[in-house]
């Protein structure tokens, strides 16, 4: 009942903000959009423990509903609010705030821009994108393992500056984050009731036009914070990202994107909070270096179709022995711009740990729609 009440309140709010017929251009209301994703999927890994490889019954699940309210606050600043109702339980899940932030776009010294609120931090390339913007259904393994399903999304304050590199667009963005996102990735819940365990992230980005029809973006990011609030152990991430896009016409585009994430941390417990022990059975603190990467290629043709593939390889934040590798093929059909979309994906994932190896095949068909304002896509 609670979620229904919230939905009714939200719909009421949306209707109040919606301009009356014929007066859309006269209102000062924010832009409103609604994006919803559904997933039909099956996989053959659920009975592997019994020695049976069999595709499960196709499940039709609700993935996510996202409601965005976006607009200018004044001539210098704008605000963005993204509310989400996560799946797969439509009845039981509750509406949450995925992002809410204000951006100061102009008027600051040195042409700085600033942002405060809860937001997906500028760490790597894909972290800033909401999942419906990905050309595939599933999150890259390295992002899921090291940043968590929700990515690096935290309360924070961000400052960004353009570096004096002439005609080349080079920006440096630094964030002070509350550190609340770390638990998403580590699985360690902070029950110390202590002060916030602040984290920091930063990204240096350069954008290179390559001829008339192609562009290349390169990024170098860092992220550090306390991953174990009890031992106050720290982690350090470094991330290299690139995106190359060749668009010879409105109808055709080739995108190649990849990221490599490197993790250093000291830890006395693993992800399950089990203490590390040396051969003598004594507790020990370990220094762990692990990494992960993804690389994808997406080819858009006839404007409404795209087809591509992705390769994933990732270790785990607390172990180099837990590894996963995946190959993914995906196909997308957007019949009318991005208002309605169908995405088909096949993924084979192999995981390897001290307990053994397993391979799982996943087939998914995603259905999505987008209602409201369609903003131009950032590169």
């Amino acid at each position, binding site marked *: 009942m609670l979620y229904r009440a919230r939905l009714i309140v939200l719909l009421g709010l949306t209707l109040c903000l919606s301009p009356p017929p014929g007066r859309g251009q006269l209102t000062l209301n924010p832009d409103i959009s609604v994006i919803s994703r559904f997933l039909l999927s099956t996989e053959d890994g659920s009975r592997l423990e019994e020695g049976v490889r069999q595709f499960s019954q196709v499940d039709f699940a609700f993935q996510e509903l996202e409601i965005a309210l976006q607009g200018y606050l004044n001539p210098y600043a704008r605000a963005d609010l993204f509310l989400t109702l996560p799946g797969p339980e439509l009845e039981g899940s509750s509406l949450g705030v995925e992002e809410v932030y204000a951006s100061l776009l102009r008027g600051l010294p040195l*042409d700085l821009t600033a942002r405060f609120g809860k937001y997906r931090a500028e760490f790597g390339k894909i972290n800033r994108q909401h999942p419906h913007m990905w050309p595939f259904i599933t999150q890259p393994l390295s992002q899921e393992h090291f940043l968590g399903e929700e990515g690096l999304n935290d309360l924070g304050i961000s400052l960004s500056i353009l570096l004096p590199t002439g005609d080349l667009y080079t920006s440096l963005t630094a964030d002070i984050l509350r550190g609340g996102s770390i638990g998403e990735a580590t699985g360690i819940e902070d029950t110390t009731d202590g002060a916030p365990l602040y984290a920091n992230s930063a990204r240096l980005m350069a954008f290179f036009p390559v001829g008339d029809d192609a562009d290349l973006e390169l990024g170098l990011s860092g992220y550090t914070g306390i991953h174990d609030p009890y031992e106050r152990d720290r982690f350090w991430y470094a991330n290299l990202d690139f995106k190359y896009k060749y668009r010879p016409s*409105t109808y055709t585009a080739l995108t190649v994107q990849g990221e490599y994430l490197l993790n250093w941390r000291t830890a006395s417990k693993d992800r399950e909070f089990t203490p590390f022990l040396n051969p003598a059975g004594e507790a020990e603190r370990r220094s762990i270096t692990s990494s992960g990467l993804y690389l994808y290629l997406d080819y858009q043709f006839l404007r409404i179709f795209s087809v591509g593939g992705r390769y994933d390889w990732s270790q785990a934040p607390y172990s180099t022995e837990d590894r996963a590798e995946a190959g993914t093929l995906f196909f997308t059909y957007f019949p009318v711009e991005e208002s309605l979309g169908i995405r088909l994906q096949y993924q084979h994932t192999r995981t390897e740990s001290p307990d053994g190896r397993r391979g799982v095949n996943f087939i998914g068909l995603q259905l999505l729609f987008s209602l409201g304002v369609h903003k*131009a896509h950032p590169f």
Partner: protein
Amino acid sequence: MRFLTLILAALTLWTPARATVRVVTTLTDLADLVGQIGGDRVEVDYIVRGDQNPHFIEVKPSYMMKLKRADLFVMIGMELELWAPQLIDGSRNAQLQVLDLSTAIAEKLEVPTTRVDRSQGDVHRFGNPHYWLDPRNVPAMLEVLLQELIRIAPEDEALFRANRDRYLEELRASVARWESLMKPFAGGKIITFHRSWSYFARWLSLTVVDQVEPKPGIPPSPSHTAALIDLVRTGSIRAIVVEPFYDLSAPERIARETGTTIVRLSTSVGGVDEAVDYRSLMEYNVTTLAGVLRQ
């Protein structure tokens, strides 16, 4: 004494270098018009190449850099450039002046009078924005542009006015010639791919019977293409006008089935090799279409 003379001579010859006005336009056509008025007192750049569809432009940091250095950003407006606010925000240029030339257009076409929603396709809420393809709108556009340039660089007012007057004189002569060339084809029926040619057609008294797109921005569908084939067979439609950035599959099917002619016209400077400035763009469009309608 000789030293003093040299100093006086140097002071006489030296005049402080005047900064040029840095202008970025959304379309190449506007860049040409700005250059015609501003001459060497302006530096002009643009965002959308003539062979690109101005409705769908990706928000690139390199475009933001162009705006970061600009004094003035000139756009068509009427929501043609829905991507422009993101570029302006990303430019971090607090001094940037934005000029929407649609404010100069007295008679806008296809302004919705009822509620607009997505069931009507990508309909523009403020009306059809392709007004620059009627050269009779250019004087009003140049007047707004002139006032803005004078506001930014008042010391160059005389030059700007002289350039504007000279250009309009040349344009008027061209317009008279184009109208004369197209006069025999008044009332001629054409199909266009998108609703880009409404102002152009009104100017030359042509009738746009339908579009290849079933609704603005919606890709051609088999059923609509079949309906267009029937329409062309029964409606003495002489040409299908298609911009260089649109796919030819559906127009070619209609042309194959009906014998009508596809005409590649450009909405912007640089869309075809012949269109190196606004006047040559219109020259190319008018003479090419006249050539087809004459057949």
